Structure formats: C-alpha cells, structure tokens
C-alpha cells in the first residue's frame, strides 16, 4: 500500500494509521485537510495541484497566523515604543530566529529578511559589486533560474565581468568534469542553484563550494527549490550566502531570506536605502545600522514574518526526512507513470533520489501550453513554459516544457489524475 494514501483520504487526526513507520506523513498528523485550497473544485474536478515549485499552497495555520497578526498586533516595528509595536517587533524577530534555527544557522543576525528569493539574489549580486573588478569571473551554471542569471548579466555589463557557466550534461547534471578548468584565479563568485526548478537535479553544492573556496571565491546558493523539501543545513553546505522565498515553503508571499556568514555579511553593501537601515543621517551623509538591519530598508512585511513560523511548525511536525522520502516516492512514481507514454520526453536524472520533487516533460504531439490548458480542464494544475529558465530550455532544445511539481500534500492519486488528463488531452488532439 502506498504511503501517501492515508493522509490524503482521512481527515486530520483520523483514527488508524496504516502506514509503515517513518514513511507515512499522516503518522505525523499532516493532512491535506489542513490546506483549505485543496478542497476546491476546478472545472468540476477535484483540484490536483501540481505547481508547488511555482508557489506552495498554505496550511490553515499560516493563513490564520497572518489574519491574527492583523486582528491583534498590527504595528510598525523597531522604533515603536507602544505595546503593539513591541509585539510586532517580537513577532518579526521571532521569524528571524525560527528561520535561523530551521537552517542550522548559528546567529539570528545572519538571516536577512527580503521580499523574496529574487530580492535576496539581487542583494547578493549588487551588494558584492564593490568587491569586483573588470575582468573578474563569475561562475554560474546552465541550469539557473533567471533570478540567478539576469542580475549577473546586468552586473557583468556594468562592471566588465566575465560570466562563465558550468555546462549541463545530456542526462541533466552539472558537468563537474569541467569545473577545474572553469574555476580560475579570476573566479570571484560562484553562484548556483541547489535544486533545478526544471530538471529537478540536486547539485553537489558542498563539493562545489569547497572547490570554489580553495580558489578564494565567494559561494552563493539559490535554495528556492530545496528549502522546505529536503534537509538544508547552512553550515554543512559551506556556502557564503543562501537565498530562498517563504512562499515556496508553505509560507506567505512577499517574504524571502538571504542567509550569510558573519564575514560576508559584514562586507555586503546595502542596495536599498531608507528608514530602519540607517544609524545617522544628515542631508548629505548616512551611516548604516548593524547587520542585518542595514539590509532591511523601509517597513518590512511584518504580517508575513508573523505567519511564516506556522509553516515551519508544519514542516517540523511532518519532519523534513519524511517529506523528502515522500517527494522521492512521488517523483519516482511520476517518472514511471510518464515513461509509459510514447513520444513524451522526460528531462533530468533517472534516479528520483537525486532529484527534487518535480518532473518536466515534453509531449511531441501537444504544445506544453495546450497540454497545461487541457489538464486544467480536468482540474490538474501543472505549469507550462520556460519556467524562467530560457537558456536551459535552449540547451534542452525546446522552447517550453510542462512541469509537475510536488508538495507534502500530493499523493500518488494526483499523479494518476495527471496521467488520465494527459490521455484525455491526447484524445482531444488525436
């Protein structure tokens, strides 16, 4: 019996748990019932949400925490000397502490709150501008999301830097054989994704970081697709900076994080300027507040910060180990299910244990946009397009792919529903 059926079918806390120990998320009392949106009908069908890599659905705890913040505590933070402001500040800083703990980060001050992974990666790139000189090299990969490509393209133009890219092999991995040659004395920064949002590939970040550090390069990891889906330990990865978004981790929108070592954060320059991030301002001069506040100009999204810990609660209740096992199972089942279709190309490594919880594919007969649309007619939500990774798609030789991506609420049933819908779409196009 497949592990996930239990928690899919029963309401939260239902009596018997038939799963084997440790691989059934319902054992941890996590249940699709906790995600209100999953009760929706779409075009008359049960919503089968397979787009968590774009944004994850939110458990009721997160939704309620955000509402409770506005109903009880709403205020601006830090400078306030009234009760609401002190409560808001406390909630805001609690989010920082919880996130630090979640990632095994020693000091909460190492966690900068931004408006998203994109904001975090832009801060990383442009905040290191003053450390770069013309001719310096930035090493990226061919499988990056635009958020980890375009800031560097812009910076390279402005500062005369050279961009290099670790190539992607035909089976969707980084070609690490090329690494020694690509890491040079001029490599100042290595920035790469932890898990590809198209191929699923999990990259050996710790290994690459160690090699890069030997060359004296700063290492940045885009963890938008890994945090919340697998254990991520900042210190163990050994990188200098790590970026991700709360909304992909079952948390609220409008909140992201840049985590850094104390050393790199002391060298990073702010890129947004205004209130809260200063120490002293005159008409012509300003000095910065301490890390991390100097990177958090203006009124932050306190409501989102007040809600995010509820997402971490859920994950810690399910445990990252079980979530990871679950996603590997789903990915394996998806790979198996999709392989049964003829004229359908699947991208990325074969081994599900080397992938994050998503599968991209291309139907030779149906354009991905049409496929996504017809799947939606059956209630199945997948994404189609270049998934903000145009260069990778060019490398794959297609303009667009369809992508099914998983969260802890997905089940084998969902993948069966997708397969049915693909069969239906093929009928329409037959």
């Amino acid at each position, binding site marked *: 019996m497949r592990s996930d059926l239990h928690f899919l079918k029963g309401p939260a806390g239902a009596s018997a748990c038939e799963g084997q120990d440790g691989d059934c998320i319902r054992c941890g009392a996590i249940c699709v019932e906790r995600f209100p949106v999953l009760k929706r009908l779409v*075009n*008359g069908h049960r919503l089968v949400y397979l787009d968590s890599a774009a944004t994850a659905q939110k458990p009721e705890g997160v939704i309620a925490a955000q509402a409770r913040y506005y109903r009880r505590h709403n205020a601006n933070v830090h400078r306030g000397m009234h009760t609401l402001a002190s409560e808001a500040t406390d909630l805001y800083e609690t989010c920082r502490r919880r996130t630090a703990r979640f990632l095994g980060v020693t000091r909460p001050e190492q966690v900068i709150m931004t408006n998203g992974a994109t904001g975090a990666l832009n801060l990383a790139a442009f905040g290191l501008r003053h450390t770069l000189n013309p001719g310096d090299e930035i090493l990226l990969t061919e499988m990056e999301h635009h958020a980890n490509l375009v800031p560097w393209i812009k910076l390279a133009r402005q500062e005369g830097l050279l961009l290099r890219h670790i190539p992607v092999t035909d089976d969707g991995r980084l070609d690490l054989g090329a690494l020694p040659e690509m890491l040079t004395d001029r490599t100042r920064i290595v920035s790469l994704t932890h898990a590809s949002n198209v191929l699923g590939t999990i990259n050996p970040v710790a290994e690459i970081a160690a090699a890069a550090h030997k060359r004296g390069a700063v290492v940045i990891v885009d963890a938008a697709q890994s945090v919340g889906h697998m254990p991520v330990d900042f210190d163990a990865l050994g990188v200098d900076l790590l970026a991700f978004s709360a909304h992909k981790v079952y948390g609220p929108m409008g909140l992201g994080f840049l985590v850094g070592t104390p050393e790199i954060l002391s060298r990073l320059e702010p890129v947004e300027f205004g209130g809260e991030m200063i120490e002293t301002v005159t008409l012509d001069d300003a000095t910065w507040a301490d890390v991390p506040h100097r990177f958090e100009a203006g009124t932050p999204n306190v409501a989102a910060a007040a809600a995010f810990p509820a997402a971490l609660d859920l994950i810690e209740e399910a445990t990252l180990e079980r979530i990871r096992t679950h996603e590997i199972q789903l990915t394996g089942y998806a790979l198996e299910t999709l392989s049964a279709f003829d004229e359908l190309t699947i991208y990325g490594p074969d081994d599900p244990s080397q992938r994050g919880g998503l599968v991209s594919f291309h139907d030779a007969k*149906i*354009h*991905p*946009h*049409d496929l996504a*649309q*017809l799947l*939606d*007619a059956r209630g199945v939500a997948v994404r189609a*397009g*270049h998934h903000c990774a145009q260069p990778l798609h060019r490398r794959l030789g297609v*303009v*667009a792919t369809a992508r099914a991506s998983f969260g802890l609420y997905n089940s084998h049933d969902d993948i069966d529903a997708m397969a049915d819908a693909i069969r239906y779409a093929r009928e*329409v*196009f037959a």
Partner: protein
Amino acid sequence: MIGEMDELYREVILDHHRAPRGSAVIDTPDLEAEGKNPSCGDELTLKLRLDGDCVVEVSAVTCGCAIATASGSILAELVTGRTLAEVRQLADAFREHMHGDGDELPDELDPGDLDILTSVRRFPARIKCALLPWMTALEAIASHTQDRPVGVSTTEV
C-alpha cells in the same frame, strides 16, 4: 465556465489546428512579416498578396501552440477579400476585445470564428498566443503603408 476550454479546443483545434487555412505558397508576397512571442516561443510567418489595397491571398505559417495556429488560420480565412484598412480595423478591434471584457466582437466586422478565442482571456498568458498573428498583420500593414522595412513584431502589446 466548466468545460469551456475543452469546448474551445474541440471546436477550434479540430478544425483550424489540423487543417490550418492560409497554407498557400506565396513566392512573391506584397506584404510579409514575422511574428514572435518570446515568452512562449510561438513564431509565425505571414505573407499577403494584394490586389490594389485588397488582400487576395494569405499564407500564415505558425510554429507554436494550437491557439496561435488556430488564430493564424482564422486570420487567413477572415482577411482574404478585405482591404488593408479593414484588416487593420479588425485587428485593432480584436486586440481591444482580448484586453477588454465585452462578450462578442461587433457583428458588422463579420468576425467569423474569432469570437471563439474569447475564452482564452481567462488565461492572460495565452492572450498573446491568440493575438500573435493579428499583431504581426498590423506590423506588416504599418510598414507597408509607411514604406519602412519590415521588422520582427512581438505580441508584447
């Protein structure tokens, strides 16, 4: 709403996608333009033969999704026999329509199957697919009347 998209696909796809109109081979077009939708990768080559100001033959070759292909096919069907001014009027009206919230295109434009594409509006990402051939036509006409070189038009409108 239920089933609206399958309806669309069943109606438009079966007809226009499988047998697109406008597949004439035109070696010496009077008007020609390429359209491209960078975010989707849809591409279209549009060629028109004119008699005076009147379109007499159309070639619209689309490489892309079924919506773009069908829209190109509908275009080929609809513009044959119209003057360039009329084509422009129809294209403008269709663009307005796709960005607006009206139910149908005015009857006097004789919009044929075009109204069928209205349901695409629910999916903003696909509006561009439906508009691609029409924006390309507008681009072709503009460069013809102003005698400027034909560029690649995109549907970022």
